[in-house]
C-alpha cells in the first residue's frame, strides 16, 4: 500500500483545524473558515492521490495498538477498502462543497468562526466512523458525531427551539447508541474480538459462531443505525434538527451523519442473520412510507426535504435488509449528491427570501433565482427517479433488489413511496418556483452570490451523472467480488436488464409529478386538506408521533423521575444521610457542654483521667 500516511492525515487534519480555530483564530472569521475549508479540501485531494496510487479495488488496514486489557485488545486503525474510499469521497467531496457554501451562507453570522470549528470537528468524527477498523473505535467516533451534531444543530442556541432540537437529537441518538453498545459488547463476548476483519474471518470460519444470540446481537447493532439514520421509531429527531443552519442540514442530514447508520450496517453485514435482516428490511420500508406520507403535508421548505431524507434513508435500510448492500450504498452516494444539492438550493432560496421558510410565502422564484431554479430542478428530478439522473439508477437498483428477493410487499411499498416522493418534491417545486408571488419577500427575492451557486452547480452535475460514473462498480467490488466491472455504456443501460421495475419506477414518478403539476401549478394555498380531510391533518401533524411520545415515554419518564426524586430527597438524603448527619450534630452539641472554658475543670478532668489510668495499670 503506497502513501500509508495519507489516510491518517485525512482523518486528523479536520481535528487540527478545529483545534486551531478554537485556540487561535476564533476572532478572525475569514481565517477560521479558510482553515476549515482547507482541511476538508486537502482531505479530498489526498483521497484522490491515495486512490490513484493504490487503485480503489484493494483492501488494507493500517493500525497501531491502542489499549490492551486482559483479553481485550483494541487497535486504533484505519480500514481501507472500496467501501471506505467511496465514503471518503462522499464526506470530503460533498462535505467540502458544503464548507465552501457555508463560507457565504454564514457570512453575516457573528459566530462564523465557531461554526467552522464545529464543522471541522464534525468532519473529523464522521471520517473516524468511515475509517474505523474496529467496533470500539467506531463507537467512539459514533458518539463524537452525536456531540458535534448537537453543537451544530444547537448553533443558534439563543433560540430556545434550536436548543431543544439539539437536545432532542442528542438524547434520541443516545437511546439508539445504548442498544449499539450492548450489541458491540455481545459480539465481543461471543467472538472475542472487535476488529471487523477478525470478526468476518471468525464468522466465515464458523457461520453459527454467534449461536442463538445471532438475531439479538444483529438487532442491537441495528439499534445504533436506527438512532443515527433516524429510522422508525427514533425518527423524530431529524425533522426538528432543521433548526440548525441550512449547511448543517445539508452536511449532517443529507450526506454524512444519517448515512453513518447505513454505512455501519453495510460494514458489519456479515454479522446480521436472516431474521435480523428481515426486521431491518421492514423497519426501513415502514420508515420510507411513513416519512413520505408526512412530507406530503409539510409547509416548511427544509422540513419537507428532511422528511424526504428520512424516506430515502428508509429505502437504504430496506435495501440492506434485503441483503443488498450495493444498492444501499449506491443510493446513499447518489442521495448524498442530490439531497445535499436540494438542501443547499433550499438554503439559497431561504437567503433570497430573507430567512422565510414557509413555501406558501414563496412563489415564482424561477425568474428571480434562475441558477437555484435549475439546480433545484436537477435535484428534484434525481430524487424523483427520472432517468437519466442519478437517483433513477440507484432507486432502480433497490427496486430490482426487492424483486430479486421476491419480496413483493416491500416492492409495492417502495413503488408507492416513489410516487409519493415525486409528488411531494414537485409540490414543493411548483409552489416555490411557479405560480404567483405569495408575499412581498417573494417579489423582492434575489439570486445568491457565486460562492453559493458554484457548489450548487458542481453538486448538480454529480446529481445528474452520478448514476453511471462507476459508483456502483466500486461498491460491487466490495460486496460481490465476482462482479464484473461495467463499462460506461453498460452502466447507462443497466436498468434495462430488469425492465419491469424500471418501467414501474418511471411510471409512478411521472404520475407523481403530473399529480403535483395539476394540483399545485397555480395554487395559492394547499388543496389537499379539503380532499383528504382527517388524513391530511394527521400527515401535517406528523402522525402525532411527538405527542404520542410525549404522552407515553416522556410522561412515564417524568413519573419515574418524580419517584426517584422523592426517594432521593426523603429516603436517601432525609433518612439515611439525615440520621448520620443528625447523630454527629447531636453528639457534637452534647460534647460541647464539656468545654466550660474553666481552667480548673480541665485540671480536675485531667487528674480524673490520670487516676483512672493508674487504677487500670496498677490496680489490677
Amino acid at each position, binding site marked *: 500500500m503506497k502513501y500509508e500516511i495519507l489516510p491518517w492525515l485525512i482523518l486528523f487534519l479536520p481535528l487540527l483545524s478545529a483545534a486551531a480555530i478554537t485556540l487561535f483564530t476564533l476572532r478572525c472569521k475569514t481565517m477560521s473558515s479558510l482553515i476549515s475549508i482547507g482541511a476538508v479540501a486537502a482531505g479530498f485531494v489526498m483521497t484522490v492521490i491515495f486512490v490513484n496510487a493504490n487503485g480503489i479495488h484493494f483492501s488494507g488496514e493500517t493500525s497501531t495498538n491502542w489499549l490492551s486489557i486482559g483479553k481485550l485488545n483494541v487497535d486504533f486503525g484505519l480500514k481501507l477498502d472500496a467501501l471506505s474510499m467511496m465514503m471518503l469521497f462522499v464526506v470530503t467531496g460533498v462535505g467540502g462543497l458544503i464548507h465552501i457554501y457555508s463560507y457565504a451562507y454564514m457570512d453575516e453570522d457573528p459566530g462564523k468562526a465557531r461554526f467552522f470549528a464545529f464543522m471541522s470537528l464534525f468532519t473529523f468524527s464522521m471520517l473516524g466512523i468511515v475509517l474505523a477498523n474496529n467496533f470500539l473505535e467506531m463507537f467512539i467516533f459514533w458518539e463524537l458525531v452525536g456531540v458535534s451534531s448537537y453543537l451544530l444543530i444547537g448553533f443558534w442556541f439563543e433560540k430556545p427551539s434550536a436548543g431543544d432540537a439539539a437536545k432532542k437529537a442528542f438524547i434520541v441518538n443516545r437511546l439508539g447508541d445504548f442498544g449499539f453498545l450492548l450489541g458491540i459488547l455481545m459480539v465481543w463476548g461471543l467472538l472475542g474480538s472487535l476488529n471487523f476483519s477478525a470478526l468476518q474471518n471468525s464468522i466465515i470460519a464458523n457461520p453459527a459462531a454467534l449461536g442463538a444470540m445471532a438475531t439479538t446481537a444483529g438487532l442491537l447493532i441495528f439499534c445504533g443505525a436506527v438512532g443515527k439514520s433516524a429510522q422508525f421509531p427514533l425518527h423524530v429527531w431529524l425533522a426538528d434538527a432543521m433548526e440548525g443552519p441550512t449547511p448543517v442540514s445539508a452536511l449532517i442530514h443529507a450526506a454524512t451523519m444519517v448515512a453513518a447508520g447505513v454505512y455501519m450496517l453495510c460494514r458489519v453485514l456479515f454479522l446480521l442473520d436472516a431474521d435480523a435482516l428481515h426486521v431491518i428490511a421492514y423497519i426501513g420500508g415502514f420508515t420510507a412510507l411513513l416519512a413520505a406520507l408526512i412530507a406530503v403535508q409539510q409547509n416548511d421548505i427544509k422540513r419537507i426535504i428532511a422528511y424526504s431524507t428520512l424516506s430515502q434513508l428508509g429505502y437504504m435500510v430496506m435495501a440492506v435488509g434485503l441483503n443488498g448492500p450495493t444498492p444501499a450504498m449506491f443510493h446513499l452516494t447518489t442521495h448524498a449528491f442530490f439531497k445535499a444539492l436540494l438542501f443547499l438550493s433550499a438554503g439559497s432560496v431561504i437567503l433570497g427570501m430573507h430567512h422565510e421558510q414557509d413555501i406558501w410565502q414563496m412563489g415564482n422564484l424561477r425568474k428571480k433565482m434562475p441558477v437555484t431554479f435549475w439546480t433545484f430542478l436537477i435535484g428534484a428530478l434525481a430524487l424523483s427517479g427520472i432517468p437519466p439522473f442519478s437517483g433513477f439508477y440507484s432507486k432502480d437498483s433497490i427496486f430490482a433488489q426487492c424483486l430479486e428477493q421476491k419480496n413483493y410487499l416491500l416492492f409495492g411499498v417502495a413503488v408507492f413511496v416513489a410516487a409519493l416522493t415525486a409528488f411531494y418534491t414537485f409540490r414543493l417545486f411548483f409552489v416555490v418556483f411557479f405560480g404567483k408571488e405569495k408575499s412581498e419577500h417573494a417579489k423582492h427575492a434575489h439570486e445568491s452570490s457565486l460562492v453559493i451557486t458554484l457548489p450548487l452547480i458542481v453538486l448538480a452535475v454529480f446529481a445528474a451523472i452520478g448514476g453511471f460514473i462507476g459508483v456502483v462498480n466500486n461498491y460491487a467490488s466490495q460486496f460481490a467480488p465476482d462482479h464484473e466491472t461495467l463499462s460506461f455504456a453498460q452502466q447507462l443501460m443497466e436498468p434495462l436488464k430488469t425492465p419491469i421495475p424500471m418501467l414501474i419506477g418511471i411510471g409512478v414518478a411521472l404520475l407523481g409529478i403530473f399529480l403535483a403539476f395539476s394540483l399545485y401549478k397555480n395554487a395559492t394555498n394547499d388543496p389537499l386538506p379539503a380532499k383528504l380531510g382527517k388524513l391530511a391533518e394527521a400527515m401535517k401533524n406528523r402522525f402525532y408521533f411527538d405527542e404520542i411520545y410525549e404522552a407515553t415515554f416522556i410522561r412515564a419518564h417524568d413519573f419515574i423521575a418524580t419517584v426517584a426524586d422523592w426517594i432521593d430527597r426523603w429516603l436517601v438524603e432525609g433518612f439515611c444521610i439525615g440520621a448520620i448527619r443528625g447523630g454527629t450534630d447531636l453528639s457534637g452539641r452534647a460534647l*460541647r457542654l464539656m468545654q466550660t*472554658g474553666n481552667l480548673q475543670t480541665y485540671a480536675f478532668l485531667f*487528674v480524673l483521667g490520670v487516676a483512672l489510668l493508674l487504677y487500670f495499670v496498677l490496680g489490677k
Partner: protein
Amino acid sequence: MHVGLEQYLTVSFLLFALGLLGVIMRRNLLVIYMSLELMLNAANLALVAFSRFNDNLNGQILVFFIITVAAAEVSVGLALIVALYRKRQTAHVEDLTSMKL
C-alpha cells in the same frame, strides 16, 4: 521511731495531694501557682527519698534539674500572671473563660 522510705513517700503523697487540691479548688491564679510548686516539690521529695534508699545519686541529680527548670518556669509564669492582671484587672480563674465557645 525509724523513718523509712514509706514515711517519706507518705509525706510526698500528702504534699502532692494538697497541691493538687489547691490547683483544683483555689480561685486565685497566684495561689494555684503556689500549689503547683508544692506538687513539684512533692515529686522532688519522692525522688530524693528513692535516691537515698537506693544508694544511687541519679534521683538527686534529677531534682537539681527540676529545681532549675522550676525557677525558670516561675519567672515566666509570674510574668504571665502580671501581664494578665494588667490586661484584665483580675487574677481569678472564673473570670478567665474566653476559651469557652
